[in-house]
Each structure stands twice: as C-alpha cells, then as structure tokens.
C-alpha cells in the first residue's frame, strides 16, 4: 500500500511541475539580473573608492566591503525586509528586498573584483595618459577602465553564479522564486523528489548557457 502511494507520487509527470517552477524561474531571473546590475554599479563605486587617496572615501568603501562580505546574505536580506520596516518604516516588497540584498552583497564582492582589476593595470598606462595631459578621471575612463573591464570578466562570471544561487535563500521571505515555487508544489502534492530535481535543473538552465556565453566573450576579448 505504502509502496503504491510512493510509486503513484513518483510518476507524476514533469509537465505538472515545470509550469509552477517556471513561474519562479522568471522571478529568480529578475532578481539576479537587476541585483547584479545594481551590484556592479555599487561595486564599481566602492571598488574605485578603495583605490582612492582620499582617506574618507577609502574608509567608507572599506567599511562597506568588510561589513557586507563579513555578514551572511540571509541576515542582510532579513534586515532589509523586516529590520528596516521596524526601524524606519520602509516596507519593501519581497522582490525589492531580494534585489537589494543581491545588490549590496554582490556589490561588496564586485568592489574587490574592480579594485583588483584596476590595480593590476600597469602604472605606466596611467603615467602615459597623464603625460599627454589627460586628467585623472579621463585617464581612468579612456585608458584604465577599458583594460580593467576585460580582467574583471572571469571573476564577475563567477560572482554572478554565486549570487544566482544565493537567491535560493529568498524563499524565506516568501519571494516566489524557484525554490519557493518548488516547495509549494511539494506541500500541496507530497511529491518530493521530482520537484527538487526540477529546481536544480532550473538553476542549471541559467548557469550552463551563461558559462558557455562567458567563455565565448572571454575568447573574443582575449583575456
């Protein structure tokens, strides 16, 4: 009898599960793309801040990076979603909170990626730029940054995949992402194995094409 129930539940067709997980797939994609985009902007600002001669800018940037790298993203998410609401009465939707969590967390790691890449460009490059009369900002924009971007691509790809997987934690605030959707299916149907497999595949559907694309970009840019 028990065996029969298990067997019955095991043979649920995947076509039952996929549409439900697919809803979460789009939410996950939205969170990671928006979060990583803003994270790159934040990371670029603080990464360059970490290279600043200005002690104040350097200090702020360092505190940001250390705090955000040194605390779990789950804690950051819960603080953004519940903590801020209690503290200053801002209520973010689960989606906004998720995007913000990725932004601030990935931002810190990206800041280190940016700092490392910019720092790795030979000093002679900026000297050559300055010696033809370019300002510091122009030298960064036209000479250092375009070269540094190339060196950032491999570690950024790595961080993208890490951050993507971090979004799986966001089911805790009832964000309807991949894991949340899969678990909803489990609690309503008691089918357990297939949803988890589907969930795993949903992430691979993003990461594998992404990795292949990245490899092509790297080859094109010759990094």
């Amino acid at each position, binding site marked *: 009898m028990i065996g029969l129930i298990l067997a019955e539940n095991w043979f649920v067709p995947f076509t039952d599960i996929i549409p439900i997980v697919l809803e979460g797939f789009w939410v996950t994609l939205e969170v990671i793309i928006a979060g990583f985009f803003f994270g790159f902007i934040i990371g670029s600002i603080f990464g360059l801040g970490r290279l600043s001669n200005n002690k104040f800018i350097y200090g702020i940037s360092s505190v940001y990076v250390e705090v955000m790298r040194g605390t779990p993203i789950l804690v950051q998410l819960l603080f953004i979603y519940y903590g801020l609401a209690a503290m200053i009465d801002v209520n973010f939707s689960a989606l906004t909170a998720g995007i913000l969590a990725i932004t601030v967390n990935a931002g810190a790691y990206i800041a280190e990626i940016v700092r490392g890449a910019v720092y790795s460009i*030979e000093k*002679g*490059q900026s*000297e*050559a*730029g*300055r*010696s*033809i*009369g*370019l*300002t510091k900002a*122009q030298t960064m924009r*036209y*000479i250092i940054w*375009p*070269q540094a971007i*190339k060196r950032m691509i491999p570690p950024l790809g790595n961080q993208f995949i890490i951050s993507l997987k971090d979004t799986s934690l966001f089911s805790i605030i009832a964000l309807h992402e991949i894991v949340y959707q899969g678990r909803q299916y489990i609690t309503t149907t008691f089918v357990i194995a297939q949803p988890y497999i589907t969930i795993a595949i949903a992430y691979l559907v993003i990461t594998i094409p992404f990795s292949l694309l990245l490899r092509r970009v790297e080859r094109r840019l010759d990094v």
Partner: protein
Amino acid sequence: MIKVQDLHKSFGSFEVLKGIDVEVAEQEVVCVVGPSGSGKSTFLRCLNMLEDITSGRVIIGDDDLTDPKTNINMVRSEVGMVFQHFNLFPHMTVLENVTLGPLKVRRVSKEEANKTARDLLKKVGLADKADVYPESLSGGQKQRVAIARSLAMNPKVMLFDEPTSALDPELIGEVLETMKDLAKEGMTMVVVTHEMGFAREVGNRVIFMDEGIIMEENTPEEIFNNPQNPRTQAFLSKIL
C-alpha cells in the same frame, strides 16, 4: 625653456635628488647620463611632475610647476614624454593611441586629429600601421608610435626616459634616427640615455649625474674626451 632650481626629491627617508640646478634653452638637446640609481630618471619624471617634488622649483616655459595654481594637466599636455617601456595603450589601435590626446585634451575634431596623426605616423615611418594594435608591432615600432603620440600634442619640450633601453640591439637605430630627426627640427629635448653615441652626436650638452647630484656638465666633446670629475672618468671608462 626649462629652469630647475635646487630640486630635491625623497622617497620616504631616502633622498634621490639632492639639489639639482639645470637650465635648458629652447631647441637645445640635453642628454643625461650616469650609473643606474643616480636619480636621472627621477629627475626627468620631476620635469612633468610624474613625481611629486619634495622641494625646489621646476619652471617650464612660463609655468612654475611647483606653484599650486598651475594647471598641471595643461603643462603636461605641452611636455611630451617617451617611456622606456613605451606604455602604448594596448586596447587602442595605433591611430587611436596617437589621437587620444588631441581629441580629449585639445578637443580638436576627429578629422583634424586623424590627419595630424597620419602625418606623424608617416614621419616616424609607420604610415601603414595606423590601424593595427600595438601588440603586433616590434619594440622599435612601438617606441616610434609612442614618439608620434607625444608629438601629436605639439609639445614645447620632449622628455625621453631611456627610450632604447628595452629594445633589441638591432631596433635601437630606428628609434635614435627618429629622435635625431626631431632634434634637427629644433625640438627641445631632455634625453636620459645609455647611448653615448647618440649623446655625442646629437646632444648639445651632456649632464653626468651620480648620487642625486649633477657631477659634471659640458659639451659632449669635453665630457667624453676630457672629463674633469673622477666619477665621470670612472663611469666613462667602464662603458666606452
């Protein structure tokens, strides 16, 4: 054109330049020679403030570089610098390397910048390389592009920091030829170099530096044939 007064430069507690006084006249070619560690490269880099000056004054044309009111970017745009390791921008074509300064600093039109750049590339013998990237060039070609890049700013002075030291021996000649042409046209030049032949032939004056000071300066004939300072004698006896 260049006036340097009591120039001191320290890195931390280590004093590299211990009071340099030099004047360079318009159209003069001054070669700076000396053993490594003598401070000659640091001296050259102080002339366009790539190194902060610890004390003393550097005046280029009418601009006092040590005056905080001086627009240092403006001065640098009129002082060309050629580096030992070329420092071309690898993500830009040769033409883009040469036009970047005129476009972004002088704000000339693209057509004008391209035309000037192509003329200069022709002058340094690289007209056919305008659209390639620096990585496909030989060291000598890279250095000639670097010279063209500096000339595109129409500088009042050109500084050369050991421009042939990173080159294979057979490529040195083409760079020296380019520099010689420049000198003939009346460019004011300060050249840190180990090429004594060039100093002798092209230089109007040779400065011998050691231990952060100018030990001796004179015409090339006097320095090479009749050095007065024992340090100069010892140095020349080792390399000639």
